[in-house]
């Protein structure tokens, strides 16, 4: 039982990821797809950050004490996943920006942002 308590936390992230993943596959609206992709990615970020947690730990920032020197008051959470996820968040917002730029262009070219309608219009292009 305690074992399950220890890892059920990861399951929530997996559920979150899968909500996003479902949106990416199932939704026809392109903006919805882009947002769902973001949800999927946050799920992964949560997984990374949660592996950084240490029981009783605190933010990995050392404290300046009276005489100006810095002192460590541990235990600290692991900063490595934090750094990786900072990078990944930046990447995900960049992808979102480019996706939205393409979606705007699609709206202009097709007059719709629903994938099934676009496919119908593309069928006409092919003919």
């Amino acid at each position, binding site marked *: 039982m305690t074992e399950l308590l220890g890892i059920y936390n990861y399951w929530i992230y997996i559920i*979150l990821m899968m909500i996003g993943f479902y949106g990416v596959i199932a939704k026809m609206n392109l*903006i919805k797809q882009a947002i769902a992709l973001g949800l999927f990615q946050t799920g992964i970020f949560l997984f990374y950050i949660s592996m950084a947690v240490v029981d009783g730990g605190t933010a990995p920032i050392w404290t300046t004490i009276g005489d100006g*020197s810095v002192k460590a008051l541990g235990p600290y959470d692991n900063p490595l996943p934090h750094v990786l996820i900072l990078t990944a968040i930046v990447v995900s917002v960049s992808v979102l920006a480019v996706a939205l730029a393409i979606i705007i262009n699609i709206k202009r070219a097709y007059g719709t942002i629903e994938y099934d309608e676009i496919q119908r219009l593309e069928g006409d292009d092919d003919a």
Partner: protein
Amino acid sequence: MSEVLLVDSVLLLLVTVCAVAIIEVRSLYAVAMLTSVYSLLMALVWTNMHSMDVAFTEAAVGGGISTILLIGTLVHTRRDEKPAKKRLHVPALLVTILTGAALIYGTFDMPRFGDPNATIHHYRVPEMMAQNVGFVSQRAGKQTPPEGFVPPPRMVPTIPKADPHHGEHAEAEHHEEGGHHKHPADDFNGHVPNSVTSLLAAYRGYDTMFETTVIFTAGISLILLLRRRRDDEPQAGETLRGQVILRVMTKMFIPFILVFGFYVITHGEIGPGGGFQGGVILATAFILYALIYGRNALFRIIQPKVLDVLAAVGVLLYAGVGVACLLLGGKFLDYSALNTASPGDGEALGMTLVEYGVGITVCTVMIIIFNQLAEQAEAKAS
């Protein structure tokens, strides 16, 4: 059950509800607002897990920039999602359930949440946290260890599994390490108190350079895809000049936002924050100004061409520091080469410069992105 886990569970319940709502609600404006709420909840989750820098970034990016992006896009697409024929997409559901099941299967051999004995807390990270990587490895140019320094035994790569108390010992060990000296002889001439920054700008500084490049790439991709042919032509846009309260409040707020932005960029090594978060905050000041006074007013302060140049300047500053290190005989991004007399000061100088590089690029690219989206909106209105 630790309090982290408890708060976490409650927050994650809210987050999950929010995520389902984002997928299911059909009004896209509502979805944009919900994503903003989602991001703020996420920021709370991350604060709860003591990841201050990530929380800060999420609040700035998810709560701020992403929402602006989404609204900016919705202005010229459509407000509502078309009603779906079927409520539930069965194949998608099956795929997700299978994927999720596979992922859950993988969690069974994971160390439990918060386990201090997990490999990741012991294997390479302790030296990074204690910030003595440079002298453990006795690198030329990195600071030499103090006399009598014996590398602690845990630096020998072993995986502690048998001893359940190993973690606590290890932690205690390196606190003492830092506390002993007034200026512990580490790589930065005194610790960089925020370990996240030391990892971000020094140990993994090369990743961060490319992170900045990603942002820059997004900026020029938007220019490539969205900029209108004749960008020199002045465009009249709707403004909110008539709204006295907004106008006055904006003017009052902007100086504070700017000061705070610079503070966040400069103090990244002491507290949460850094170039990225600070850059986003700076950008919001400009975007706020453009929203209230119109983009033409913004262009009188800072021209689009200047923005294009500045976006490149930021990344060039970052990479330029790296090249400067090369020219001074060090390796790429070996900041200690910047000041051979006192390598620690060189490290500090390098880290400050690259943070500014990140800040400049992030700030200008955010304004460029806003600009391109707003330009589209106006083009549509006219």
